[in-house]
Each structure stands twice: as C-alpha cells, then as structure tokens.
C-alpha cells in the first residue's frame, strides 16, 4: 500500500512534468495537467507518509539502474518520512495555488515550461529525502539544484533574475563539491555508498546507544565539509548571499517551495549526517552549529528589517528561521556529546518541529506575497497599502502567517520556539562545564530575534495591507481567484492545527529521536491528558496552546459583558481620521516602511553603516525647495568584505592559469602525455 502510494506519487509528478511539455501551448491544458498531476502526486505522497508513520515501517525499495554503482534506492525511515511529509503538504497547497497562479503565464505561453520544472523539482526533492545511497542522493540533489536554477532564472528577460540564477548556480555547486568530497570520505570509511553502511561504520554496533567508531581529524573534516555543503543550501550566514537574490525573483509559487522546502534539503542533510553518519559529534561541532545558528537568526532578521521589497524581506526571514532550527540542532549535538540523550532528543524535536513550521508559514507568506504581486503589481511595500479591504482573504491568510512566524501563541511558531527555549534552559542546568553559559545567551538572543521578527511583520503586514493605498495599482487591486485563496487557506489552517494540536503531533518524532538521539521523549513532553506540553525535566514548565485558544473564547465573555452592560445606547459612527486640521488625509501622510524601521536602523548603525544622500532642488531661494530627493543605503558586508576579495582572487588565479591554455594542440597533447606518465608511475608505486 505504501509502495503504491509512494511510487504513484512519483509517477504523477513525472507525468505532470511530461504533460507540461507536450500539452498544446496557449491552451489551458499545460496549467491544468501539470498542476493537477502535481496536486495528485502530493496527495499520494501524503498518503504514503501517513501510512508509513502509522505502521512505523521502514520501507526500502531498490531498483537497479543498469549503470555501475547507481541503484535507485528509496528508504522511508522516520526522518525521510517526516521530510517527505512536509514536502507533500506543501506540494498539495502550492499546486492548488498554482492552478490559479499560472493563468498569467498562459498568456506568455510559458505555463507548460514552468509546470515541467515545477514537477521535476517536486520529484527530485522526494528523491533527495528518500534516497538510500550516496550516489542516488547526489544525483537527486543535482536535479533539485538544476530545476531550481531554471525556475529562479525563469524570467530570462530580467537581468536580476539571470544574475540571481547564476549566483545560485555557482554557490550551489560549490556546496555540492563539499558534499561529494564528504561522501567519498564516508564511503572510504564504510566500504560502500549505502547510507546504512555509513551509519554502521560510524557507530560500533550501528546504533546511537553504543559508542562511536568515528573520531579525530577524519570526523572533524567530515563535519566541516558537510556543514559547508549543506549550509550553502540551507542559507546559513555567511554562505547565504544567494538566498535573498534567488528566492524573490522566482515566480511566487516557486519562491514558496524554495523557502519552504528546498532550503530544508540542507537541514535534512545535517540531521542525517550529523546525528547518524558522524558518530558521536564532538562538543566543538555542536558549539559551532549553535553559534552559526544564533548569528544566522539575528543577522537574518536584522537585514530583513531593512527590506521594503516584500519578497526579499521574506527571503531574509528564511535565513533567520534556518538559524532558529540550527540553534535546536546545535544544542542537540552538544547534549549528545555531553551524554544527555533525552535533552538531545528534546532539542532535536525543537529543531525539526521548527523545520515543519517554517515550511508551512513561510510558504503561506510567499503565496500571500505572490497574491499581492498579482493583485497590486508590485513587490515594493511603499507602493502597497489598503489591501485588507481589497484583498480580504489574502490579508487574513497573510496575517495568520505573520503571527505564526513571529512566534506568537497559540500558533505553531510559538510551540517550536517554546521547545527551543526549554531545551536551552535545561542545558544550563544539566552540565557544570563553562560551555553552559552559551545556552542562556543563545536563548536571550533568540528572544531578541523573535521580538525583531514581530517588529518586522508588524511592518510587513501593517504597511502592505492596512490604511490607505499608496499607489494607483494598489488602489485597483482585486482579490485573487479561489484556487490561490484555497492554497493559502490550506497552509493557514495547517499553521493553526500544528499550534493547537501540538501534543497530538509530537509522537511523530519518536521514530526519529530513537534513531538519531537514542531516546524517546514524546511521552514525557505531553501532560494533563494531552492538553498541555511539558518540558522534559522535573516539573518543568508547561504550556497549552489549545488551552490558550480556548481561553480567548471563554474570556471574551468578559469584555462582551462589559460592553453590553454599559454600552446599551452607544452609537458607533464612522468619521474621518484626525488630520491635524490640515485638509484631508492622503496616503502621503502615512508612515512608510522606511520610517517604521528607522529607529532600528539608528540603533544598529554599527552593523548597517547606513549612508544617506539628500538632494534639494530649488528655483529661487534654498529656503523654498521645489523637491527634495532622499536616498539611503546600508552596507552589505558579506558581499563587499568576504566575497568581493574571494572573487577577485579567483579571477586573478584564472588569469594566471590562462598561460597554460595556449590554444595549441601540441601543448595539450603534451599535458595529456605527462599526466599519463605520472599516473602510471603512481600506479606502479602503489
């Protein structure tokens, strides 16, 4: 049954890709077939995941490819099932949305091509999450990177899209290079390319409960290679520079997938490698992951605050949330090496739960931004405004996403952040070493991150959706069609469900934590008959998102009663907003996104190094200006200080190497000959 659903889903994705290519262009068929089949594929994969979770099975299938070393091996173990579950949830919602969204591509006759790469991306992502050997994994990884590249640079006529696509291509392949080296090292250790052999080579008896076999420099090299390789994909700072370029320029349904699930490939890889193939992670590795997580979270949100392009703002928030996930992962690795398996399991659950939550609410927000782009024809927040009355459903879904991503109760972001705090707090109490000071400091910076994220989403929602429209296009905006709204509604409902139903969802992690951290903790995390969550140690702290939601309903009787008791004869009139006595309030009087984030720009001036340029135009006297132009920019230190010099060094090296590329066939023959001799000598010697 699982097998039929799983391969049926893959086949549906494949059929959707083919249908996108062969269906007659300019008709509705490319859109309907490719999105419809992707939706079917998502539903089938969802079934496969739910069945796999319910049966607790460890399904494994192998299809020989007829090529040496290459076997199409699929394994649906707990971790793979979990990530495939996230993917299939997104596939269902985003495909529904795309059914409406791709209409605008029909006129340009490109809907079919988009549908082809869209389905290819979904299929290759499924393969990445379920591959059971390194060769097939890397093949799927590359297919993901390539289809994502074509989707990022889909709008070929836009120079920004081409540039973003190239940057993504280069960065992604630098990462893949690290992974290739890492997997070669692992296969030398394990004796084969099978994932199971890596795991058994890392642990003495192939289980996290016994001692490690992999130690020392080889382990350190593996950790660094994989952290860099997967880190590029996940967008950790300082390997993030492609992310805020690539995610916004893609079509919005693709942005949703990119930020929702494609960057999670890196997270999946880290979970797989750090907890399974590396043996016992050394303490310093955990510290590195934790600190990179904190830095990514804080810098991600600080740069997001300065963005007024709605989709770029969301892209920077992806960096922030990857950071929050890595705080959980880093803490889990530290707990593993300190010998606290139960705490490691809690921290791992916090990270993995946030992975799911971020996938859901970030896709929701990107779909919302796409809907706004569709309605108001702009990504610039300063040109929006007043959309809550023109696009009420989109606005409501976006608000749900904004509350969830700000980590506010009772939605899902709050639950995973709460678990992260609890893991960090328990870490301080658990150990006597000086490293324990890292946990509460990480917690405090996480609090700052969450509060800044809330600030950023007050800005994003408040400036984009509230008050008066700031441009004619925003004033003419219309609500998106029902497919797009349904796609967003599915994700909004999931946000609420993952928040209120957290206690029902937690047992999903049991299989993963048993395998990766050697402990099963979901039972101890649930208390009061499933009503509340409880931190694992002692009496700990408790929280009940469902209870908080119920309290909102119950307690609202109090203000309702107060209003009814006193306000029997009160009138409710609509009047003009106070305009300080000036004639009429226009959208020019409204607070702008730039002004909203100005205090933070001044407070964190040491980081942003803002520069401003003011030009005044006047005719007669400088005291009566006709127009004032204001421009302000912030520095992007990573591009300028880190990548700039690296790029120049590579170019210089390339110029030097041009000397050996003489263009003469004789020289090339000589190179080949010399290489051959050297290889022969090497072969004889060993």
């Amino acid at each position, binding site marked *: 049954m699982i097998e039929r659903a799983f391969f049926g889903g893959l086949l549906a994705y494949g059929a959707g890709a083919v249908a996108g290519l062969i269906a007659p262009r300019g008709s509705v068929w490319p859109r309907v077939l490719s999105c419809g089949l992707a939706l079917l594929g998502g539903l089938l994969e969802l079934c496969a995941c739910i069945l796999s979770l319910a049966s607790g099975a460890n399904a494994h299938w192998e299809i020989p490819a007829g090529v040496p070393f290459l076997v199409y091996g699929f394994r649906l173990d707990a971790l793979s099932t979990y990530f495939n579950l996230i993917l299939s949830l997104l596939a269902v919602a985003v495909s529904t949305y795309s059914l409406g969204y791709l209409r605008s591509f029909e006129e340009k006759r490109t809907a079919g091509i988009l549908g082809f790469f869209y389905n290819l991306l979904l299929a290759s992502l499924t393969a990445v999450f379920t591959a059971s050997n390194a060769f097939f994994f890397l093949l799927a990884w590359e297919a993901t990177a390539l289809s994502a590249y074509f989707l990022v640079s889909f709008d070929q006529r836009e120079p920004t899209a081409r540039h973003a696509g190239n940057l993504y291509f280069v960065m992604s392949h630098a990462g893949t290079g690290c992974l290739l080296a890492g997997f070669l090292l692992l296969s030398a250790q394990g004796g084969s390319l099978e994932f199971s052999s890596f795991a058994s080579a890392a642990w003495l008896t192939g289980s996290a409960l016994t001692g490690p076999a992999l130690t020392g420099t080889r382990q350190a090299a593996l950790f660094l290679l994989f952290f860099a390789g997967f880190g590029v994909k996940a967008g950790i700072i300082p390997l993030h520079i492609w992310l805020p370029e690539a995610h916004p320029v893609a079509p919005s349904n693709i942005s949703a997938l990119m930020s929702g699930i494609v960057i999670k490939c890196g997270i999946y890889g880290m979970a797989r490698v750090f907890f399974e193939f590396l043996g016992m992670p050394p303490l310093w590795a955990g510290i590195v992951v934790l600190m990179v997580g904190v830095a990514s979270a804080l810098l991600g949100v600080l740069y997001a605050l300065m963005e007024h392009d709605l989709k770029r703002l969301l892209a920077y928030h992806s960096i922030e949330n990857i950071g929050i996930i890595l705080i959980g992962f880093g803490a889990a690795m530290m707990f593993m090496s300190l010998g606290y398996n139960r705490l490691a399991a809690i921290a791992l659950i916090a990270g993995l739960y946030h992975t799911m939550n971020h996938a859901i609410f970030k896709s929701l927000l990107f779909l919302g931004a796409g809907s706004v782009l569709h309605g108001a024809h702009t990504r610039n927040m300063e040109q929006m405004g007043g959309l809550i009355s023109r696009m009420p459903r989109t606005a409501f879904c976006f608000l749900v996403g904004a509350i969830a991503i700000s980590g506010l109760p009772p939605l899902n972001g709050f639950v995973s952040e*709460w678990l992260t705090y609890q893991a960090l*707090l328990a870490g301080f109490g658990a150990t006597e070493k000086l490293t324990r000071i890292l946990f509460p400091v990480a917690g405090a910076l996480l609090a700052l991150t969450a509060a800044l994220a*809330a600030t950023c989403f007050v*800005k994003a929602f408040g400036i984009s959706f509230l008050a008066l429209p700031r441009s004619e296009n925003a004033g003419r905006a219309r609500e998106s069609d029902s497919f797009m709204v349904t796609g967003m509604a599915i994700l909004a409902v999931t946000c609420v469900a993952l928040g209120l139903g957290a206690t029902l969802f937690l047992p999903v992690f049991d299989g993963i934590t048993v395998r990766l951290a050697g402990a099963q903790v979901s039972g101890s995390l649930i208390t009061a008959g499933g009503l509340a969550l409880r931190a694992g140690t002692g009496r700990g702290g*408790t929280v009940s998102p469902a209870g908080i939601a119920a309290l909102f309903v119950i307690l609202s009787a109090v203000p309702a009663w107060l209003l009814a008791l006193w306000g029997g004869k009160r009138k409710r009139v609509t009047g003009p907003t106070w305009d300080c006595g000036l004639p009429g309030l226009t959208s020019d009087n409204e*607070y702008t996104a730039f002004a909203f984030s100005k205090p933070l720009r001044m407070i964190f001036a040491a980081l942003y190094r803002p520069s401003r340029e003011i030009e005044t135009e006047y005719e007669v006297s400088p005291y009566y200006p006709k127009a004032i132009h204001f421009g302000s920019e912030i520095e992007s230190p990573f591009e300028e200080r880190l990548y700039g010099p690296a790029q120049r060094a590579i170019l210089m090296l390339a110029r030097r190497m041009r000397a050996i590329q003489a263009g003469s066939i004789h020289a090339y023959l000589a190179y080949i000959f010399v290489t051959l001799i050297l290889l022969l000598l090497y072969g004889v010697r060993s």
Partner: protein
Amino acid sequence: MTAIGAALAAAAQLLLFLTIAPLVTGVIRTMKARLQTRRGPLVWQPYLNIHKLLRKGMVIPETASWLFSVTPWVVFLTAAMVGLMIPMVVTEAPLSLFGGVLAVVYLLGLGRFFLALGGLDAGTPFGGLGSSREMTISAIAEPAMMLAIFTVAISANSTNLSEVARSAIGQSWRFLAPSQMLAFGAMFIVLIAETGRIPVDNPATHLELTMIHEAMILEYSGPYLALIEWGASLKQLVLMTLLVNTFFPFGLSSAWTAGGVAAGLAYYLAKVLAICCLVVLIETANAKMRLFRVPDLLAIAFVLGALALISTFLF
C-alpha cells in the same frame, strides 16, 4: 484541585486583577502629584474614566479595517489571560498549567503585535510613529527580560511561575543573593520600559515628539478606548505582580482559604504599593530620555541580566 475549584479560583483572581488594576494606576498618579506638591486627580479617577468611556459612543476612522475593532479585544484578553498564569495571592496560579513565564512574555507580545497594527490601521502618521517606537523598544528590552527570567527559572528549575514561587518558600532571604538582586534590577528596568513610564515614555503626554503608547491609541474612542486603557493598566499590574511574586514571594497563601487569602492579599497589596512608590520616585526624579538614549538604558538591563546569570554559578 477539581476543575470547578480551578474555574472558581480563576474567576476570583481575574476579578481581583480587574478591580485592582485601575486603582494602581490611580495610586501612582496621585502619589506622583503629591510628590510634585500638586493635588492631582482622585485615586479612583481611572474607574470613573472607564465608566465614562464605556457609556459613550465611538468614532471609527473611515480608513480603518476590521483589525481596528479586533485590537482592543486582543489587548484586553491577553492581559487578562496572563493574569491567570501568575501567582497573585495564592502560590498556585489558577491556570499555571496553561503556560509559564514564556507564555506570559509571548502573550503580552501578541497584545502588542495587535496594538501596533491597530496604530497603523487608521493611516495617521502618529499611529505609525507610535507602533514603530513601541515595537523597537520592546524588541530591545526582550533579551534583558529573558536573561532575568532565565536566572529565576534556573534557580527554580522550572519556567512555571507557581513553581518559581514555591521554590523560594522556606528560603526567605534568597532575594539577597547577588543573582536575584541583579535579575531584579534588570527586570525592573524592563518593567519601566514595558509599561511606558518615565524615563522611557511619558504616560501623561500627547506631544507627538515624545509619545509612544499614546500615539498608537490616538484614534480610539469610547468603549474600545476603555478596553485598551483597562488592558494597559492590567498589563502594568501583571508585570508588577510578576516582579514582586517571583523575587519576593513571601505572604503567598498555600490554598484558597479565607484567612490565607486575606493575609495574602494584604501582603500582596503592600508589595505592589512598594513597587508603585519606587516607580513614582523614579518618575518624579527623572526627565524623559531622548528616544535614542533608551537603548543605552536597556543595554544596562541586559548587562545586569547577564551578570545575574553568571553569578548563579559563581556564588
């Protein structure tokens, strides 16, 4: 405790919070006036204000959306809900199962999130100005608050506020420990910032250059304004309760008995009055800070919090 008992306890505590909160605002105003040798308004003026506002009609700005009407409810409800998670006169908070100190912080954050959106909704520049400043200041206050919270949570080994209060019973001099005093200092600065008091914000001003909280609620009138003001005074009392009952948890009754509650209430009111005196002294002796000096004050709170944390394992 049975479900009915818990519900009754919750109702009793909610009632206490709702009735005392405006009084605290009034007491602070009166004491401040007396210290400045003014007569000042009546102590129960806030009740009269709420009574008056609830009876009046209201004007909704024509540019506002449904969010404008939802905001007063969310602000009021989050403050009321948080009041049920904090021990007030009895050690066991009625709904401590529903959330500890983290839920308290984040629920207040939810109220603030909506209040800031409500400020932006009307489309006036004042509202946006207030929202921007409120969100900025609360964001940079957050890490200091979290460090102080971590310090008490670590000594109690729980983020549950009833557990925190219970762990301090029997060690009545614990508040003299360096970690507790430093954490108290950090928390007190955060209290001033979060409740919008001098030197961070001036609750009595309507001058556009300086106001923060008042700027956000400028467009509210009638019953909605009553809900927001009541919610704000509730939030103030809740934060004061958090401060006094985590750091000085003496006098808390162990059960809902008549004698215990009476004694607990007397202790509680005395402690809150003491905090009020402190707030009044600071308000009277200081001028409002420039907005961009506020981060310095909060940085001090952050350092105090960090020192508090470090001293938990040094001493």
